[in-house]
Structures are given as C-alpha cells and as structure tokens.
C-alpha cells in the first residue's frame, strides 16, 4: 500500500470549509482542512511514490510535472482565498500527517498570525511595465569615418558606442520604472519588486522594466486599477499592465517586509 503524505496549500483564518469541499487538489484528491486553534491548514493527501524525497527531486526537473502541480496549487490557493484570509504555502510543502501539520501551526502560530494580519482584507495586484517598443532599442548611428569602415578599431568603437546607447536607454528605463513604482506604491498598503521576467518565459519581446506586486485593500481595487490606467496614459515610454486581485503570495510571508 503506497504511503501518503499531506500536501499543504495554504494556512488561513475564517475559511469556510464547505466552500472548498468541491475543489480538487493534486491528482484529483479532495481538499481537507486541518484545524489548530484559530488557524486552518488546507491540505490534500498525496502519494509518496510521487511526492517522496527522491521522487520530488526527479519530478521537479520535469517541466510537465512542475507546470501541472504549480497550476493546481495556484488554482486551490485562489479558491481558498475567496473564502477567507489566506497565507499561501510555497510549492511542495508536505507533512507526514495531521499531527505534524498541527505541530507546524503551533510552532509558527505567532508568525503565521502576523502574516495573516498583514493581508487580511487585502489583495495582491501585479503590475508589469514594459518599455514602449519605439524606445526599446536605440537607433543605430551611421559610421562617422568611411575610411575606417571595416577596420578592427572602428568595429570595437561601434560596439562600444552601441553598448553606451543601450546603457543610457536602460538608465532612462530604470528611472521611469522607479518613478512608476513609487507612484503606485503611494496608493498601496505595501509594495514589492520581483525580478523582471525573462522574455523566453513570457513570450513578450519588449523589455520588462518593472515587475511589481502591490497589496491593496479589497474595496480599493477598482481605484487602484484606475490609477494604473492614469499612470499608463501619462508615460508614453512605458506600457503598464495590471492583473488582479490575486491572493497575497508576495506579502503573506514569515519574514516581514
């Protein structure tokens, strides 16, 4: 008989277990709620032949497996977050059983409660800023000395000049990104910068000059989205895209920002 573990999706407070009873966990397993004091851990049973230490190390290298588990994890977090205050767990946090889950909650009760306090009544908004296409690549300059065209020295000079123009364009982009980040942060409870996403991962060709997450009160979401639109309109060199509201992944952390 295969051994099971419990896969942790999130720790919450005030969740409505009935609201998530129809939601599927990993590999179609039913979600369960493990209660300890005022906190609730949302879990599902997983097969340790798939989620044991050795198998995990192997499966995490398999993009198909990783994508499936990550999307399921995220879908469950979204479903649970709609019913109450939630601190999502990182992917593949697995405990032996319910006692172990309760032990974790007890040991971390103070920090978990603080994380939940920080995000209660609030949601995360993702704002990504791309350099507007025209400003993305500096225009090439014509050779200034035709007699030297093709020589090694001119070649290196052209390379250096291009690098300088790219650096200047990048500096301008950074300045615009900083300004936009600050303008939106002023309207949010908290803000975080995430690393810009690789174009090969997003399929977007324009450079991403800002990848930010904002914590915004639930009933201020529409106003925040409207602010993003206004900032977008006043910055010709940048394109802003807002997505949300999402569960507060970036803010319900044990290490307070």
């Amino acid at each position, binding site marked *: 008989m295969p051994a099971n573990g419990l896969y942790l999706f999130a720790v919450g407070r005030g969740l409505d277990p009935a609201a998530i009873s129809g939601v599927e966990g990993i590999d179609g397993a039913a979600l369960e709620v493990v209660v300890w004091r005022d906190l609730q851990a949302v879990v599902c049973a997983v097969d340790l032949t798939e989620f044991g230490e050795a198998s995990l190390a192997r499966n995490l290298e398999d993009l198909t497996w990783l994508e499936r588990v990550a*999307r399921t994890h*995220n879908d469950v977090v979204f479903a649970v977050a709609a019913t109450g205050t939630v601190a999502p767990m990182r992917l593949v946090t697995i405990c032996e059983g319910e006692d172990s889950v309760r032990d974790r909650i007890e040991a971390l009760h103070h920090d978990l409660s603080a994380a939940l306090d920080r995000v209660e009544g609030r949601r995360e908004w993702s704002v990504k800023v791309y350099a507007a296409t025209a400003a993305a690549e500096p225009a090439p300059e014509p050779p200034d000395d035709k007699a030297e065209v093709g020589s090694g020295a001119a070649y290196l000079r052209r390379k250096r000049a291009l690098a300088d123009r790219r650096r200047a364009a990048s500096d301008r982009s950074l300045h615009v990104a900083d300004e936009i980040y600050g303008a939106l942060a002023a309207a949010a409870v908290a803000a975080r910068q995430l690393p810009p*996403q690789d174009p090969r991962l997003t399929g977007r060709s324009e450079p991403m000059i800002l990848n930010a997450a904002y914590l915004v009160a639930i009933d201020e979401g529409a106003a925040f989205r409207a602010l993003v639109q206004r900032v977008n309109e006043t910055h010709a060199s940048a394109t802003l895209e807002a997505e949300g509201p999402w569960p507060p992944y970036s803010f319900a952390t044990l290490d307070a920002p």
Partner: protein
Amino acid sequence: MTESPETSRSPTHSRPYRSSPAQYSDGPAPANLADILERVLDKGIIIAGDIKVNLLDIELLTIKIRLLIVSVDKAAEMGIDWWRNDPMLSSQAQDLSEENRELRERLAELESGGQADEDT
C-alpha cells in the same frame, strides 16, 4: 490602458467551482506560467515540511525557470531540455560560445597588430 490578454480571456485552466458566494470577486487566476511559478516557488509561507526538498535546488530551479519559455510545447519546439542535459550544451549556449570565440579572435588580431579582418 493595455490590459494583459490574460485578464480578458478565460483562463486556459478551469477555476475550481465555489459552492458559496465569494466574499469578493477575484480576477481570473493567472494563465501566465511565469506569474504562477515566481509566486509558488519563491513567495508565500516557506517552511520545511517532513519531506525534504533541497532548498538550494528550489532556488536554482527558480533561476532556471526564469530562463525558460512559457509552455512545454514551446520548449520542445526550441529544443530546450536543460533538465536532461548540461545547459552548457544547449543550442543557445553554443551560439553564445561561438560569438565569444569570434570576438576573442578579433581582439587577439588587433592586439598582435595583425591586419584587421574585414568580415564583420
């Protein structure tokens, strides 16, 4: 404002049914794998479970994922299979190595005072 396409079309993965009214309406779950991975791998409550996951591996995985593309189909198209082979053997790494080698040769020529190569 340009809305990301993900916010205006249905998510490609169905959202779980909620049997009771939502306390507030959510935006659709992100369809962009980059958004999901950078959050579920790198954010949230990070604690050690009972099943050991080498945390260093997760961080390395996050870095590797950032270098990857959005779907498995695209990965196959581009021949990306870093999880099986040394990434230094990937086609893109080979292109960069080749360009690097050419630039070093040009520098060597200039430093040695040889005739400049005209084939740039």
